């Protein structure tokens, strides 16, 4: 999965809409995606988001994570919020929030890609189409 990071402007609309779609809330910390500023060192932005590699599936001690149609999902009812998958993720794309009892990750719904003003996240929308 290749994101067009050169076009990212750091606006964080992806984080905001993710929280709106996932939780019905305005809260970019409750999102399965992060925009990280690298302006001071590299004059650019990074986006951290799941690439659905699936490494977390094996790491989960309670079998709460599975792959469905190319998208890695966490079953919130089974999840014990132990944090092992968060540490396992090679991309750092499993996010924790103090008010949420399971890690938050991208499920490739495509909403952020639809709204991104620069088309940075088009590759995510592609995953979403596979999923649906």
């Amino acid at each position, binding site marked *: 999965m290749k994101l067009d990071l050169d*076009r990212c*402007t*750091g*606006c*964080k*609309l992806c984080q*905001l*809409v993710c*929280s*709106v779609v996932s*939780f*019905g*809330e*305005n*809260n*970019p*910390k*409750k999102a399965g995606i992060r925009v*990280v*500023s690298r*302006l*001071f060192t590299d*004059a*650019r932005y990074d986006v951290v988001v799941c690439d659905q590699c699936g490494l977390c599936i094996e790491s989960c001690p309670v079998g709460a994570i599975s792959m469905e149609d190319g998208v890695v999902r966490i079953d919130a009812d089974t999840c014990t919020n132990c944090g092992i998958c968060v540490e396992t993720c090679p991309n750092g794309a499993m996010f924790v*929030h*103090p*008010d949420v009892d399971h890690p938050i990750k991208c499920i490739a719904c495509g909403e952020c890609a639809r*709204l991104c*003003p*620069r088309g940075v996240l088009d590759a995510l929308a592609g995953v979403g189409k596979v999923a649906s």
Partner: protein
Amino acid sequence: MHGYAGAILRVNLSTGAVSREPLTEDLASNYIGGRGFGAHFVYREVPAGTDPLGPGNKLVVAAGPFSGVFLPSGAKTSLSAKSPATGLYGDSNIGGHLAAELKYAGYDALVIEGKAGEPSYLFIEDDRVEVRPCAKLWGMGSIKTEKALKDELGDEFQIAAIGPAGENMVVFASVNHDIGRQAGRCGMGAVMGSKNLKAIAVRGTRTVHVADMAGLRKVANEMFAVLAANPALKVWQDQGLAQVTTWSNSIGALPTRNFRQNFYENAEALSGERMRSDIHVRDKACFACPMATGKYCRARHRGETVYVEGPEYETTALIGSNCALGSIEEVAYANYMCDELGLDTISGGSAVAFTMECFERGIITKEDTGGIEARFGSLDAFVEIVKLIAARQGIGEPLSRGVRAAAEAWGGGSEDFAIQVKGLEWSGYESRGAPSMMLAYMTCDIGAHHNRAWAITHDIAVGRNIIKGKAAKVIELQHTRPLFDCLGVCRLQWVELGLPLEYYARLYPAVTGRQDSWDDLLDKSERIWNLVRAFGVRERADFGRADDQPPRRFYTEPVPDGPLAGSRITREDLDRLLDEYYDLRGWDRNGRPTAKTLERLGLRDVAAELQALGRIS
């Protein structure tokens, strides 16, 4: 409370006391947020005669109900205090990511009082609030300070910091945020410096609840779609506000050589196209904004390479054409110096241009400048002068108090071309050929700033020589545009891309649950405008019409060249503009709100206070 975090955080730096006050329904509904909250707290809590640079002044840092909410660019933070530049109420706002983060941390506004015993920064992470000593940051540039704090605390912390100019209480010191966003006007950086407050660092994990999420999503999605479909969006993404330089020059509004001219023969070298082709590195956006007007640029000067966000139009006008610099890269380097020192590029550019004119006229000499050849066009001179200003050394001492004070110090008739109103330097539109814009600058509540009413196209549309009828448009704009600063949202999507105001009117009930119409909100904006005016009336027995005057240059010197060569505005024209304006506002001819007007706006207690002082009838 829907649309709000629901709390005001009050921090007394003298005692270290921190308290959370619930946001009252009365404050939220009557003053909305942002600048409205600023005006409320500063009027109510900063009594007449307070030293703006003393512990009695209060700095209000406020988001609005739209800040941090799912809609285009709910990104605006207002900083308000009694201004050390004007001695009146002052405010300035910043884009970036601060407003949203403040809401997520659980606060609609910070009210910062007193003075810390040692250099400190304010740390806020949700409920955790600490005043932390930071001696090692004192003296550091504002951008370097931001980097140091982000390195220590993490990238999710949003930082607002001052540079050496703020520490030294230069009256046009800025507050910098997100590398290149500034609350530049009115000396809010000096107020922070006077409180030994180097920076504010905020991170929050909370939710901003709204009244009708489904309704909000519907309106916001429409707004995002309309913006995305606008073919001009691409131009904004490419050039941002830098595109205005060429237009401003073409209509005779580009400040040139300390506002003597309004046409710069070398403007092409400062254009948005040149910014894009010569120095641009990356587009940079405020929170949830598709326009991304921030232009991260690279500039080289004398072997040094620096990165800076900008230069946008105001900086290009005041530093570029107004100091007659030769290229956009030179402007970018000067921009970097101002940002790092923590100086407003508008007032800073104006102060340098004023110095250059005084030097070329012989009012000051090389002896005064310490050897600096302060001639128009010299970037080296620019850099040396702003360093002296930030350090308040030599000619930098009087300049650090603004061009009005510098003119008093240097004399020689220089007050005629100290380009300011109320002590605040004039921003980027020379207005001899635009009477409504001239009136907008004269009557802007914080001094000579363009953001309250931007009316040049109105002048062009109805006739640039016409005086009568201009005041109504200025008043309409003075209520509409600052409303965005109350709501905590950027207005560029409306004013620049033409997103209809109806969308914002629909957002308000969805976010707050209140059923105010747009006209209701405009009434509240008028109330805030009058409260700010009342602050001046309470402050000084002689406050009034004399404070609404432009510098003599504008009504005694015709425009020397360019598209408006020979045009002028007369003293009589200015008086007619003011009379019409005061009458329409319900103010007396000395520019003071009448008791009747204040009462109409729900400010009965303010009317009573000013009447008891014998200030209004």
